[in-house]
């Protein structure tokens, strides 16, 4: 069901995960320095390093999974999103409830010419992780057009 995110989002996520790993390595190196110069206990460093490595490995492993099960679909009156397989979430947001749409892109997404789409309702924010720029703009205009057609949201 629905549309998949572009293939290139995977490399963005991989880059993101590598950056996180890099930060962890820097922290661990710093702590090892702490061990040498300030006599910090070694076991704390070991535990933190273990946790960091487990998280990083998990992040890398989960990328294909995340990609595979993240779908979105825009029909004339609602936006539907499905994420996850182990915990599968299907969300419907009627277009009439949408207050605004935010397109944003950090450096990583920009590098791959992608944009994330955030859909705000009066209550919460729903995110479509990353789509290419054309799709993002098309999406935005579509949602805003559909929202415009009907009377303004009355809450």
């Amino acid at each position: 069901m629905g549309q998949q995110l572009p293939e290139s989002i995977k490399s963005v996520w991989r880059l993101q995960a590598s950056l996180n790993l890099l930060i962890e390595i820097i922290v661990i190196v710093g702590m090892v320095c702490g061990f040498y110069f300030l006599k910090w206990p070694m076991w704390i460093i070991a535990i933190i390093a273990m946790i960091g490595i487990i998280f990083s490995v998990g992040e890398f492993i989960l990328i294909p999974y995340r990609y595979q099960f993240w779908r979105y679909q825009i029909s004339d009156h609602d936006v539907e999103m499905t994420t996850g397989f182990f915990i599968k979430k299907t969300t419907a947001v009627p277009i009439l409830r949408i207050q605004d749409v935010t397109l944003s892109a950090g450096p990583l997404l920009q590098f791959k010419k992608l944009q994330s789409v955030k859909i705000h309702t009066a209550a919460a924010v729903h995110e479509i992780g990353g789509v290419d720029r054309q799709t993002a703009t098309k999406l935005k205009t579509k949602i805003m057009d559909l929202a415009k057609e009907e009377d303004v949201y009355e809450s």
Partner: protein
Amino acid sequence: MKAKPKHLHPAAIIVFLTQVVKDWWILLVLAIANRLWWWLLLAVCIVLVIEILRYVTFTYAIDEHEIVIKRGLINKKQTHLTYPKIQTFQTKQWFFMKPLGLVNLKVASSAQADKQAEVNLPVISMREVKQLEKLKQNATSNENSSEKILDIDKVEQHEQISQRYQIKWRDLNLYALTSFSIVPILLGLGFIYNRLDDMLPDGVMDGMIKNFSQQTEQVIFWDIIILIVLAAFASYCFIVQRYYHFKTTTYDEQLTMQKGFFQTDKVTVRLNRIQSVVFEQSWLRHLLHLTTIQALVAANASDNEQSGNVVVIPVVQNKASHKIAHRFVKWLSVENVKPTEWLQASRRGKWAIIRNTGLPALVISIGICIFWWPYGVGSFILLPLAWSLGSYAGRTTGVGILHQDMLRIQIGHFFGKKTYYLPKKNIQSCQIKQSIFMQRTTLAHLIISVRNGNVETSLKIRYLPRQDAHKIYSWFAE
């Protein structure tokens, strides 16, 4: 018409100053205790200058179409709020402000930008509030139908109070007695104790504790009992004064709730802006067959900072609750009708809920047993409690479609329950959540999200059969 920007009433400076004292009272007490007079003088001067600057730079203008507020000296800020966007309109008046005809006014829209209300005028005159109300009324009636261009006098006539409810002394007592807010008060006492421990010079607190620990056990026991009774009594008095003369009225599509002894608190909200109506029963009120009726609004108007629950009827007999709610909110039905299809957790799902409450209880009990043998065995009393909690939640939680555009959701929690009546247009999103284990058992959680105050409230109906969850989902998405 452009209104001239005005300053607040000069009494606002006093309000600002009391706020400062409220925020920094501990430092103030410390400074006095340690006789730091010069520092104190310096601080007072700085605060005075800041607050006077705040007063001078704060202006407001009540225009034909909007309220404009300007404030700030270095970082200037301007807020515009047009009348049709107003969600709630709240005035608060301390008893000593009454003879002066002054009130505190808060007007909020549904924007989520700020934690506080968009328009907060600490002290303005009653006359201006009246004027603002008229302008607001005009704006909305113009918006609703263009032919209905009424002049202000006509609107006034229109404003006949059509329904009213006034709390009786007996009900007020019942409400206060069943509020059971002794727990927060005890927590508060604990918090103050911690604060004092940090703040006071070392010797004082230790001395007190030493004094205390020299008493016999019996005396300590009685001290604790007295403390609890005092806390309960304080909580009772607090609630009685807060809900004193509670009054709900409707006129011209507006719902107004008024309450308070020392401080009169009045909230007005348009009926079509109410997101949902909630019938709430805590375990104690459930036992006594009493219900509290609340309205969820899309702006910050309650006593609680975050949520938008506004009490409409503090306490009413279960049987009469729907009738009385219907008087004020017309789209509710007169009777407590059950939906034709009341969807609940299946037998398998109910078991899952019991398991989810039972397992943590089991772990805790075993832990206590190990650490505190043999008395810890007593903690196994948690297990039947957890079991009955889970089975109660499973039995009471459910969801059903009332008619084409209304959902009835009931959520059981801790032997109490909340029943939401939710028009379809106010449901912000609908989610089905299913973990991989639930795929095997074809169960799913249904999560309905509603706007409440400045935040989101998610109503979770757990462990529904999947096709039932999909029924609601497709009803919503169609």
